[in-house]
């Protein structure tokens, strides 16, 4: 049985059917990429899965546990973490404080209100370990808002990783990156494959073909087809609606 299943998800915005009975499965340890042209409903789908948008119909199951009725924060606690297309970090705080806030959420109660948080060694160590593996150790004391775009995206990813997810939703982790930053991000994501399954939404086709075990194509809120890279590259309809000359050429 799959680690994660979304079944028959529907989302309407007025007359627009943004998500049209989408079903998806992600296997344990798998990187499942979701591609599709602009406006296909990829970000809506991520918001439905993470719970930031309520679905009109359908269900979501992670590891046999039904998450459909859970609030977004409870879904994170159940093992479903996400990144944001536009980096969502705490811009006025240092990278260290960003990471501390993220690891704090998973380590005991956040209603503790008398002891000094920064004196908790276990939290500091976890934050530093997280910085180490995401390549942020050098910039720990810098303000997150002053970081270059690529580093902010990495911090965004680090915040999601702090939740120790079983399934990680990555909403365009390479968006707006140059080739060098992109390659570093690809390496970083590949390194995660052992510990969490990943649902990857990405426009950068090179990255998708490098990383994904399976690819689903979303068009007009519907899954057009699913398969491995060879299947997608060879799929005539996919080429027509989306890949165009990029693959053909």
């Amino acid at each position, binding site marked *: 049985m799959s680690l994660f299943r979304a079944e028959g998800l529907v989302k309407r915005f007025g007359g627009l059917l943004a998500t049209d009975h989408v079903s998806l499965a992600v296997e344990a340890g798998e990187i499942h990429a979701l591609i599709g042209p602009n406006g296909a409903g990829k970000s809506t789908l991520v918001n439905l899965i*993470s719970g*930031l948008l309520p679905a009109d119909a359908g269900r979501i199951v992670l590891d046999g546990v039904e998450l459909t009725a859970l*609030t977004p*924060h409870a879904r994170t606690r159940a093992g479903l973490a996400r990144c944001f297309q536009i980096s*969502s970090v*705490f811009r*006025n705080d240092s990278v260290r404080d960003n990471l501390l*806030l993220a690891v704090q959420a998973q380590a005991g109660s*956040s209603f503790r209100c*008398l002891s000094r948080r920064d004196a908790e060694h276990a939290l500091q160590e976890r934050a530093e370990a997280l910085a180490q593996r995401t390549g942020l150790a050098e910039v720990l004391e810098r303000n997150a808002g002053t970081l270059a775009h690529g580093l902010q995206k990495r911090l965004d990813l680090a915040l999601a990783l702090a939740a120790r997810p079983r399934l990680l939703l990555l909403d365009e982790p390479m968006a707006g990156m140059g080739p060098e930053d992109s390659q570093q991000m690809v390496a970083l994501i590949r390194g995660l494959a052992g510990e969490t399954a990943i649902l990857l939404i990405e426009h950068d086709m090179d990255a998708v073909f490098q990383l994904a075990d399976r690819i689903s194509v979303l068009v007009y809120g519907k899954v057009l087809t699913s398969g491995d890279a060879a299947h997608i590259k060879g799929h005539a309809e996919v080429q027509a609606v989306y890949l165009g000359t990029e693959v053909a050429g």
Partner: protein
Amino acid sequence: MPERFPGLARRLPWLVLALLAAFPLIAPAFGLEYYVGFVRRVLIVAIAAASLNFILGYGGMAALGHAGFIGVGAYTVVALVEAGVSSAWLAWGSAAVLAGLFAAAIGAVSLRTRGVYFIMITLAFAQMLHYLAVSLRTYGGDDGYGLYTPLALGAWLDGAHAQVFYWVVLAIAAAVFALFSRVAHSRYGHALRGVRDNETRMVALGYPVYRLKLAGFVAAGAVAGLAGGLLASHNAFVSPSIMHWTQSALLLVMVMLGGAGRRWGAPLGVALWLTLEEVLKLYTDYWHWPLGLLLLLVVFHAPQGVAALLERRAGKEGAR
């Protein structure tokens, strides 16, 4: 300042506390007895402002109904006195608890909204409390209720010194500030600021954002209720005007003048505003004018408040 006088910034609060503690003893020598009562009022309002600063400055909740909780506290004292209670601690403690309960009920509804809606709904609840007080004939309705016998502090405190109530207020204020500063650096304080800065990300990190906000709202309501109880004793009189919406607005103005989200923002704002009001009233009936100008000046030149201005001077950029 700290470069030239290391440690001054750290010692300054203790120095101020010592001065405040000594004030009732030295005031008579300078003919300033009248101002002991004034400082006491500043301290009480500062307690209420500190609680508002906690949810506004740290939690990002712009509540425009804080005077409502002050009123609940004040009327709790009135109700207990009417019922024959004479212990100050019981009355003030009940004021805090009851205001906390009201805050829990009001917050549970209000915190489902954001921004302007939150401002309006907290205002609406406070106005309901205001009119409830107006309708309470037993407690004087619109005319208010006089507390003719001071509440008993108990044991050796009563009659130990004419200004015992002043020191009690000072001790409570100091404890409240110490508590809020401590909370600000705790796990909870960090989480609350996280909610203020980026609520969506906090949700995605797995934080129960609604419950975090509600806890802060209840704590702030309880402390405001305590301030209301103290204010009732201070004035020896309570009327519905204590929770008029302009009082809530004034409290917001004082917090923002001092610096929302700054440790010393609330007491600075309150002290500055009430002192200027007191001084200007000596010279003119039109004292609102200069205060309005001051507010404009702060908005344009120190939008983060006076505390931020002082911190920048002291070279502690971004300190909170």
